[in-house]
Structures are given as C-alpha cells and as structure tokens.
C-alpha cells in the first residue's frame, strides 16, 4: 500500500489519485493524510495569502499568509463534530475522524490550487497601482484586483468540491446521498467560514486603519447581519 509521503511527487500523487485510492488512504493512513492535508493547506493557502496581502505591504502579506490557512483550519475543526454527525444521518457511514479527513482533503485540493495560482495572483497584484492617495476602494483597479482574487478562491473551492464528489459517490453507492452530504457540509462550512473570515478581517486592506493582524472590534457584527442590513438599505431606501 502506497502512502502519500512515499511518493517522489506527493502533490501530483494526491491531486491525481483515484477515489478508490483516497478511500484507501482514509481507511488505512488517516493520520498521515490529515497531517499531509494540513501541511498542504498551510503552504498553499499561506502562499496565496502572502500574494494577496503584499499589495498592502509586507506585514499585511505575513498576516494574510497566516490568516487564510487559519480560517480554513478553524472552519474544518469548528464544524468537525457537526460534519461527523450529519454524514451518517444523511447516509454516509463514516467515523468522526474519517469525515474530518475527507473535509480536510477537499480543502487541501483547494489550497494546492490556490498555491499554484499564487504566482498569478502576485502578478496581478504587481500590476495593480499601489495603495496611495490616488487609489481608493472605488477605483476600478482595486475592483479588478478584488474580483480576480475572489475568483481564484471560488475556482479553487469549486475544484476542491468537485474532487470530493466521486469519493462520496464511491463510499455511499448513491449519487443522491453523496450530493446531500456534500451540500450539507458545504452549507455548514460556508456559514461558519464566512463568519470566521469576518472575524479575522482584513485580508487585503482596511483604508481607515494601519496594517494590523486583526482589525478593531473583530467580534462586532457578523457577515450575514452586514449582508442583511445592506440588502434592507438597498430595498427600503
């Protein structure tokens, strides 16, 4: 049985592995897989964070390089119990540790994609006019930067979930059950993850503040409250 770490090219082995191989790793090399995935998240998402934050300055690059993998890991751990309970209730008979490994695996794929895109992100950042008095949050350049960086995150997330689906289908034997489990995990992770990102903001910059690890009042308000209030203002004013 081949462990990931024994490969000469572990990243390509991980990304190219068939669903049967993933299941084998989850059943027999769980701890190795979890460590490998966590490492991949730290390195991949970390390097993307560095590329995103460098636009503001070197310290922001460091902070975002730490916060982006932290957001992913905190989301996975925070929802670990819930994901582990929802899976068997929806028809996927896995243990808590196995569900944690599966979720980490999909985040690791996404993080590897982000890591691969970090040079591209860096290039976009390098081409964007620096943060000066002339650049504001309403500048088209800043808008393009935001779109591109968010787009890369969305792409990586989609790829991570697409890689998860065949594994769930193999495990459950049913496309419907696999889809329900994936959607439930996705909803839970998006819900908690968006709030964790809200707490850990800013990732790119905050025009009103100097560079700092976390903004003031991180626990003031919530992501969804802000969306709801913005929507209310849009509709009712």
């Amino acid at each position, binding site marked *: *049985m081949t462990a990931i770490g024994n490969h000469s090219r572990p990243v*390509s*082995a991980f990304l190219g592995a068939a669903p049967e*191989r993933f299941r084998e790793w989850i059943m027999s090399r769980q701890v190795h897989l979890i460590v490998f995935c966590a490492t991949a998240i730290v390195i991949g998402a970390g390097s993307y964070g560095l590329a995103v934050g460098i636009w503001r300055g070197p310290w922001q690059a460091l902070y975002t390089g730490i916060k982006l993998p932290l957001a992913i890991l905190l989301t996975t751990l*925070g*929802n670990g*119990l819930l994901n582990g309970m*929802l899976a068997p209730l929806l028809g996927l*008979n896995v243990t808590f540790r196995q569900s944690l490994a599966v979720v980490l695996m999909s985040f690791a794929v996404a993080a590897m994609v982000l890591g691969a895109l970090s040079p591209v992100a860096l290039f976009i950042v390098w081409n964007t006019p620096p943060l000066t008095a002339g650049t504001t949050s309403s500048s088209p350049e800043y808008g393009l930067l935001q779109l591109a960086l968010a787009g890369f995150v969305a792409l990586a997330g989609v790829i991570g979930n697409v890689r998860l689906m065949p594994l769930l289908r193999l495990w459950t034997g049913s496309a419907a059950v696999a889809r329900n489990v994936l959607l439930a995990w996705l909803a839970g992770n998006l819900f908690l993850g968006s*709030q964790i990102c809200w707490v850990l903001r800013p990732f790119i910059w905050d025009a009103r503040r100097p560079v700092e690890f976390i903004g003031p009042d991180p626990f003031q308000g919530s992501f969804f409250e802000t969306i709801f209030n913005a929507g209310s203002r849009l509709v009712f004013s």
Partner: protein
Amino acid sequence: MNDQNPLPPVSAQLPPPIPPVLPAGQPRRLGDDPSERLAIPNVVVAIEAILRQPRRVMFQLRQPGAGHLIAMMLSLSVVCSLIYGVVVGTFSGGVQLWAAPVKIASGLMISALICLPSLYIFTCLSGSRARLVEIFGLLAGLLMLMTILLIGFAPVAWIFSQSTESLPWMGTLHLAFWFIATIFGLRFLEAGFSNSEARSRAGLNTWVVIFLLVAVQMTTALRPILGTADTILPTGKKFFLAHWGACLSAENNAPASRSRN
C-alpha cells in the same frame, strides 16, 4: 506523474461492504440484521448507534430492560442541552450563564412530557402496536439526537454569539439550529413509527406540528433565555408570535437594546 502501481487488493482494513439496498416492497423487520441485536451498554455506544444504526436503537427499545437505555438517552439529552444552554447564555453572560442552560434543559423535558400522552394516542389511533415504553423510548431518542446535533452546532452558535449584539438575529439563528436538529430527531421518530405496523402517518404528522408549537411556546414561557430582564421568569403571559413581534419592534426602535453583562 501519477502512480503506476495497480490498485492493491482489498485490504482487511477496508470497511465491510455496505449491505445492498433491498428492492422496494421487501421491508426488513427490526432485528433481522444481527448487528441490530447487539446491546447498547453505554452512552458512547448509544451516540454511535443513534447516528449510524438507528434501527439498533429501535430494536433495543423493544427488548426487556429498555428502561436502562431510555434513562441513558434522557440523561444525555439533559447534559447536551445544558452544554448548549451555556453557549446560548454567553450572548448576555452574567445570570444567563446558568439560567439559560437550566431553562433550555427543563423546557425541553417538560415539552416532551406534555406531548407524550398525545403521541401515544396518535400512534395507537394509527394502528401502531408499539407499547407506551417503546413510544417513550422513541421520544427519548428524538431528544437525544436533537441535543447531540445542537452540540455540533455549538461552535458555530458561539462564534456568532460573540460577534453580534442583535437579539433577533441570535434568536433566529438558535431557532434555525434547533429546527434543523429537530428535523433529524423527528426522522428517527418517524422511522421508529413506521416499524411499528402503523397504517397511517396522519396522526404522527399532526403530533409533529403540536410538538413544534409547544416547544416554541415554551421558549416564550421561560423567557428571557437570550437577553436580560429584571426577573428570571416572565411576569406576564404572551404567545410566542406576540413576543417575537415585540422583540423585532424593540430592535427596530433601539438597535443597541442588548446589554452585555
């Protein structure tokens, strides 16, 4: 480069194959699968069983000595609801750190007790042959599954509790989590019900509506659970819709209406 080695033979460490799904029209009886006949000796096994092998729990509720299993499930429900109550109480802090868990745990148990006689009646009217002990056990299973799922939501609830001062928002969030957890609990109850030779589900569906209304009203009867007030229990009577309306109006008129102690 992808790994060129062929896939290894199925290892002994791989999980046993999932039993094939029986064709429609061939219902399995409880206890047909030998794994369902294994006893449930402790709380950890009970949690695993209700998540992964609910039919095992249903089968054990029909055996002599089901009282021990029911007591275990009820105790776990109380403990889990106390833990979730502490998370709820962190929104306001202070007195709510102990009052909220006590109210949530006791409110849940009292709601179940209020609805148990009507559950037995509706199951009998539907033709079910389940005894009162078995019905009580299914209700205990519903409570246990609901509360352990609430524990799963606890980290999410906590982080939002610390992030907002909006009472209606947090109330809605807790209600949403409770509702999702209750849906899974009711699925367990309905599965148990369908294994008891019931001819119709109309009675059970009616009881579900009654149970939801009672539980929701109990949160108003024991208010405040999230916010703060001068007294532990309310001095006036209100139905839950009136109470929610009043909370929303208060929020619109004075957004910073909650105080953190």
